[in-house]
């Protein structure tokens, strides 16, 4: 069920996910389109998430944004509900941070990432090149997750409750909690058209799923739902982003993840399993949650013969 409307306030709105926004030319969403978008969100009972550019918006835009309950996604600067960073750095402020990094930056700046985790209420790490992971990268990523998990465990022992999506989300979840683009959320672009998510807009503006005048027209919308994703519906890496844009990019189908996506998500899942087990050695922790079970695969695709 649709719950969220993401509104890109400008052509250069910051990327907060896997896609790159390479557009440099400022192009604000027309004010009347913004107003109609907000009105649409109100009428459809959608929670609106505004994605801001790096520059300061004109006052009339700021005023319009405040006419509706919403979340603000911004580059690290001023007041927001979610900050987006492209480099690990210590942050001042009680705001969850999305850290977009390549695998190499993550591997090289592991210590900075841990320090960042200590300074924010929640750290969402988005790997911007997950589709390029090699066997060697998987090995390095597994080791990195183990080391970061050890830090997280220490923080828990010290009485803190750090949140890092790669490790702590799976401990808390009992079902899939993925991106939901096309199913739970859609995006309104500055051109007044709807898209599955910002990545679909930036990749191809012709790829719209409706507009403000005629409403949404999501063809084959069932394919964005978990039940229509043969691999994912058999999976328990509940924290996986399950990015439908990356799915389409790598496998040509929005409902089918790549091998790399699955393995990365399972390395995280398995690291979460160990983290949960280790934290529990120090005392009662999430007593209502069962242990994360041991599995013998990293890609559910490899177990497809056993699916019923």
């Amino acid at each position, binding site marked *: 069920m649709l719950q969220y409307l993401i509104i890109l306030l400008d052509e250069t709105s910051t990327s907060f996910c896997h896609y790159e926004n390479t557009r440099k030319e400022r192009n604000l969403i027309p004010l009347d389109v913004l107003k109609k978008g907000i009105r649409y969100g109100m009428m459809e009972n959608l929670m609106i998430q505004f994605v801001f550019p790096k520059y300061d918006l004109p006052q009339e835009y700021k005023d319009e944004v405040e006419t509706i309950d919403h979340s603000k996604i911004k580059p690290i600067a001023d007041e927001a509900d979610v900050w987006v960073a492209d480099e690990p750095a210590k942050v001042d402020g009680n705001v969850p941070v999305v850290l977009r990094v390549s695998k190499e930056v993550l591997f090289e700046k592991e210590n900075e990432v841990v320090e960042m985790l200590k300074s924010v209420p929640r750290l969402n790490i988005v790997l911007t090149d997950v589709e390029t992971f090699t066997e060697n990268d998987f090995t390095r990523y597994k080791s990195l997750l183990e080391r970061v998990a050890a830090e997280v465990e220490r923080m828990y022992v010290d009485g803190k409750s750090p949140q890092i999506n790669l490790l702590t989300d799976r401990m808390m979840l009992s079902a899939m909690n993925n991106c939901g683009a096309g199913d739970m959320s859609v995006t309104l672009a500055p051109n007044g058209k709807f898209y599955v998510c910002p990545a679909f807009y930036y990749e191809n503006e012709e790829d719209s799923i409706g507009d403000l005048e005629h409403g949404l027209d999501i*063809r*084959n919308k069932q*394919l964005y739902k978990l039940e*229509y994703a*043969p*691999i994912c519906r058999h999976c328990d890496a509940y924290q996986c982003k399950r990015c439908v844009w990356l799915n389409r990019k*790598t*496998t*040509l*189908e*929005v*409902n*089918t*993840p*790549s*091998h*790399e996506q699955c393995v990365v998500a399972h390395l995280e899942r398995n690291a979460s399993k160990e983290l949960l087990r280790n934290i529990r050695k120090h005392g009662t922790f999430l007593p209502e949650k069962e242990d994360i079970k041991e599995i013998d695969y990293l890609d559910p*695709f490899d177990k*497809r013969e056993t699916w*019923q």
Partner: protein
Amino acid sequence: MNSIKNITFIVTKDCQLACKYCYLVGKNSKERMPWEVAKQAIDYILGHEEDFREESVVWDFIGGEPFLEIELIDKICDYLKTEMFRRNHHWFNSYRFSFSTNGINYDSPKVQEFITKNHEHLSIGITIDGTKRKHDLNRIYKGGAERGSYDDVVRNIPLWLKQFPHGGTKVTISSADIPYIKESVLHLFSLGIREVHINVVFENVWKEDDDKLFGDQLIQLADEIIDGGYYNDYSCSFFSENIGKPLDRVLYNQNWCGAGMMLSVDAAGNFYPCTRFAAYSLRSKKPIIIGNVHDGIDKNKLRPFLTLDRTTQSRQECIDCEVASGCAWCQGENYDAADTATIYQRATAICKMHKARVRANNYYWNKLYRKLELEDMREEFEKSKPKSNDLIC
């Protein structure tokens, strides 16, 4: 069960014919497979034995008309045999070369030399659509003169059946062919062809009342087959005991089509999950290329094909259908007809034709079994009845 890999060389996109129902919308005389591409494809496939674990292989040659490239095919087959032996590949001595031909140059010296040389490992099907008027309705020469090809094909049938006595033919039914189904199947039987694989096209070509006409033709055919006693020695794939039943959504959830488990390679060296995903087969979608002879196969692009099941791609109406079994689909046509670029939307253009087939099929088996029981021949028939395969593409 012996697992089989089907690997198709699209050796040419040219054909002498311009059949009206042909799904190959982009045929041309320019795209002929160079030997170097064929060799690179073979080297890649045989060099990656770990990715091709099926016990046996069918090397399939398709066009256009494959026998237009008989010299290339001969060279490919020689190289395949040599390389499978040299590499001690597990497919050596577990392979076939397969052809579906329009039969026009079947008796040419080069084709005949090739047949003699490879006969033990050959499967060849000649496509003949039935009576002259039915065949020539669709299977015409290119060039716009509406010249039918029946006479040039039928003259080669005796030679073909002498060399391949169990050879079957594949008949395709489009809207205009419906009135000729009965006479065509009986005609093929009369030519000595014992297995007639026949199916309606998957494309959305059907007119109002086509299902009624189709059903009438099948009932008439059923009467002829049963009253004429053909059922003992001949088979027509329209009549199958396994069709027309509901399908459990869990137990019978497998995909119908083998796209993705097959591999096709074209003249440019691109790999496809099936020939139907090559550009020349598609009306309205981009080709699905899953790799090439230089870079190999992108396994990520095969994942949707290999995890595709019946219910995920079907509408609820199809999942709940009480006559679902035997209702076929072609993944390529599904993709081509889909509202978005997906293989996960099942085309249902043949729905009413399938239902008409099921009704006629019920009639056939009820009538046949009653006759056999009255003649006290049922048990004997069960032991020796011809097996019909639902060959659909």
